[in-house]
């Protein structure tokens, strides 16, 4: 995603350090995929960014991907599409999983790829050509990032959708109304299904207690 803005807080840094300490040695041994799934505005992008920076400072190259770039329907058409097709369309199937899986495979093989990249200023879907040859770690964040196959380490970030509502008002990414609220509830249910599958569970409400599931 281009032109996204996020706010780094102390608890994000602590979470990133905790995850980094657990996995850093493993990332040096093989091409490593980390998924960061969780609720809207729970800090997934921020954690991804901080992890990437920490890896960089320790000479491990990581590429950060956001599943938001892999929606089948582009941003400017999504709301109308959702309204026309109803709430049943909301969820995991809104993403282009074939392309996501192909991207993971390219990463494992160290190939070049062409990826979609949304610009939040223009809401256009640009494309980016990148080379995975020298990239050792792939960090994928997104509502349903745990659904990716072949992930080495799965992070789940907790937040109830009521808090999400407040957080979204703050980042001001989307217009909040009753339809958007219904979407969030639907997404919340689908997101929570990934919880049992996580290697680590981060809940800022209980402030950095981590649970191994």
């Amino acid at each position, binding site marked *: 995603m*281009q*032109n996204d*803005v996020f706010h780094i807080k102390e608890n994000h840094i602590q979470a990133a350090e905790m995850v980094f300490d657990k996995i850093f040695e493993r990332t040096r041994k093989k091409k490593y995929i980390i998924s960061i799934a969780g609720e809207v505005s729970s800090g997934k992008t921020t954690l991804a*960014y901080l992890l*990437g*920076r920490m*890896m*960089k400072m320790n000479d491990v*190259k*990581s*590429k*950060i991907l956001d599943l938001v770039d892999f929606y089948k329907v582009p941003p400017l058409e999504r709301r109308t599409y959702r309204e026309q097709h109803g709430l049943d369309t909301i969820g995991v199937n809104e993403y282009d999983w074939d392309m996501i899986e192909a991207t993971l495979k390219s990463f494992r093989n160290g190939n070049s790829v062409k990826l979609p*990249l949304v*610009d939040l*200023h*223009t*809401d*256009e879907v*640009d*494309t*980016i*050509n*990148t*080379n995975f040859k*020298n*990239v050792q770690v792939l960090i994928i964040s997104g509502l349903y990032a745990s659904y990716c196959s072949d992930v080495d380490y799965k992070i789940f970030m907790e937040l109830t959708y009521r808090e999400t509502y407040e957080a979204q008002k703050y980042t001001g990414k989307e217009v909040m109304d009753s339809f958007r609220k219904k979407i969030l509830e639907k997404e919340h249910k689908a997101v929570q299904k990934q919880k049992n599958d996580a290697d680590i569970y981060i809940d800022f409400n209980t402030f950095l207690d981590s649970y191994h599931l």
Partner: protein
Amino acid sequence: MLEDILLITDKHRKAATVIVDEILKNKTVKYIVAISGESGSGKSELTHVVAKEMRKHGIFAKPIHIDNFYNTLPLERTQWRVDNGIEKVVGLSEYKWDEINKVIDDFKNSRKSSMPCVDLVTEQIDTLTTDFNGIDMLIIDGLYAINTDNVDLRIFIELTYHETKKAQKDRGKEPQNEYRMRVLEQEHIAALSIKNKAHLFVDMDYKVVKA
């Protein structure tokens, strides 16, 4: 530029309001704005807020960051500058102006355009492809952005690296050392040499004033 850090504050929002008013007064089809200023002066922050404000007026603005167009790779730049002499090579000629001008031409003609795009986490240069069809405005952001031809509104932020040392440190972008200081001084001299091209200045107190 991928994975860059921005520190947006009220001073950027206030300056952006004045700049947006100025743009709305003068805006023509396929309008180009350039924002220059030294390292840490808030170019990218200002660019971000202006682009976001334009969208509220129904105008789609695409930011283009000049630092994507360096002649040298991020990881090799320091060595290259040291080898060739900082005082000799740091300046306007470090950028691929041909490629910048090509992007501007693509924008003016609503074409698809490919350009370099630095990822600050991988420190690799990716290639970004975008479609300028439907994009109303371009905001070029970079140390020497106002040096670009065919720009409609040129903005220069007057804060120098002496004042912005703190901002640099907060962004944790580059180490503060003797080499860095010599680069900053050289960039300062080069920026001053194009300052007279500006239509608007953002002064030391972040107030917007006309040239």
